């Protein structure tokens, strides 16, 4: 309800005479002569505004309504679209890796922080042999997640990636969803950049080539 009100307020920005939310701020004319300045000093000195300020801070102290989030112990909830350290997802059907080693993420990365190397495995299928992201360079723009054709690389919610070096890397094995998590069915799909939008099935249209 409250949000709707704000939304409405921001959507209608036309300042009309009918809109009673707007009013002119009363600004007194600036004093030019000595007598006017003296009057202003007297008015300011005895209007008691200093005590208003004192009361406000004292009231807040008595109410003791602190807004501190004690960070390492408490954490703010983050949105599902939050773009933090990357994750590599697995296929729901076979628990195998979604990444097909196409290298598009390496190509599109504007800060050149992704390196990928692939080789052919025993079945002559392409597999990722090396994959690393330099988190010191990554700007978390989300292009890699957007360009990924398999929804393999996505962003995750792990934002505590402080390091004692500027170059610190996250490797493929660390980003990959662990198998036990996969077996438990708790892999979370990323809702953010590059993800399939909700109700995608209804929007898909058959192209002329589909037969």
């Amino acid at each position, binding site marked *: 309800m409250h949000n709707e009100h704000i939304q409405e307020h921001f959507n209608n920005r036309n300042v009309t005479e009918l809109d009673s939310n707007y009013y002119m701020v009363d600004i007194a004319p600036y004093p030019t002569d000595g007598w006017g300045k003296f009057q202003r000093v007297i008015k300011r000195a005895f209007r008691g505004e200093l005590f208003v300020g004192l009361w406000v801070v004292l009231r807040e*102290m008595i109410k003791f309504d602190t807004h501190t989030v004690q960070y390492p112990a408490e954490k703010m909830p983050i949105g599902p679209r939050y773009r933090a350290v990357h994750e590599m997802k697995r296929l729901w059907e076979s628990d195998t890796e979604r990444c097909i080693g196409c290298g598009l993420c390496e190509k599109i990365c504007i800060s050149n922080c992704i390196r990928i190397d692939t080789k052919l495995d025993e079945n002559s299928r392409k597999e990722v042999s090396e994959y690393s992201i330099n988190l010191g360079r990554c700007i978390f723009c989300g292009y890699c997640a957007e360009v990924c054709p398999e929804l393999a690389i996505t962003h995750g919610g792990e934002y505590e990636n402080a390091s004692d070096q500027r170059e610190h890397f996250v490797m493929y094995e660390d980003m990959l969803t662990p198998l036990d998590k996969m077996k438990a069915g708790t892999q979370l799909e990323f809702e953010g950049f590059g993800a399939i939008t909700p109700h995608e099935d209804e929007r898909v249209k058959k192209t002329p080539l589909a037969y």
Partner: protein
Amino acid sequence: METAYFVETIIKIVVILLIFSALAGIGTYFERKVLAFMQRRLGPVNVGPFGLLQVAADGIKLFTKEDIVPANVVGRIFKIAPVITAATAFMAAAAIPFLPSFTIFGYEVHPIVADINIGILYILGIMGVGLYGPLLGGMASANKFALLSAARAAAIFISYEVITGLSILAPVMMVGSLSLIDFNEYQAGGITDWILWSQPVAFVLFWIAAFAETGRTPFHLIANDHEIIDGFGTEYSGMRWGLFFIGEYANMFFISFVMALLFLGGYGDGSFLGALGLLAKVAFFFFFFLWTRAAWPDVRPDQLMWLCWKVLMPIAMINIVITAIVMM
């Protein structure tokens, strides 16, 4: 007798030094807590219960930090300046009666180091000497912000010291003595005897000047963080900076004692309740120093000097004249 007096004085000095050094530290804790609560924060919470040991952590940090004397500073003056601030703050405490006299093990103790008959003059004089800490430290630092701070310190000192002296003159005329104990005896009859009621203007003027004297927020100009970094303290590190800090906070406590003794009846009749009353008054004044820091903005140096010379000084003069006429 002489030996006993000597030993007693030494013990008093040590006790006052220890208590107020510790109080300066705890004062920073209270300042951080009160400011935090007023700004809807928590303040220090991690070190010890309710963050109480934060003071100890800060102390350890200050004592173990490297003592840096930068290039181009005037070495000797740079090193002596923090000592001046801290030493003068504690020297001023010599003439302050902290509690009424009490008897311990059959021996009567006067909790004042030296009951000199010019107590208030001595206190104001020594606190005035305390100005040399920021002034010399700022000038010797080879840093433009420190130099600005030193210039401000001198300019502000001249302004507020006039108000301090003139505002206190009227109560001194009424009491007829400069000793703080005489001031206390004059108001010993209870709350109606307080000089606050007969000299409200002098009280307000002295209070305003106390803010300038201790450099607290409405007049926090010589170390105004957003204008001149830390002013005279910019180039200081470790315990040298800590001495400035101890001096500033000890000064806040002592000026609170002086205000309570001069205008609010001090410890009254000398009973236990009176002693508690004095501590309560001091606590209120100290709290007010923190309170204003949360609530009020800083003024510019020119505004402070305008206030002191053009508004407060004439009021103080008029107050003295009216007091004199009434006394005649």
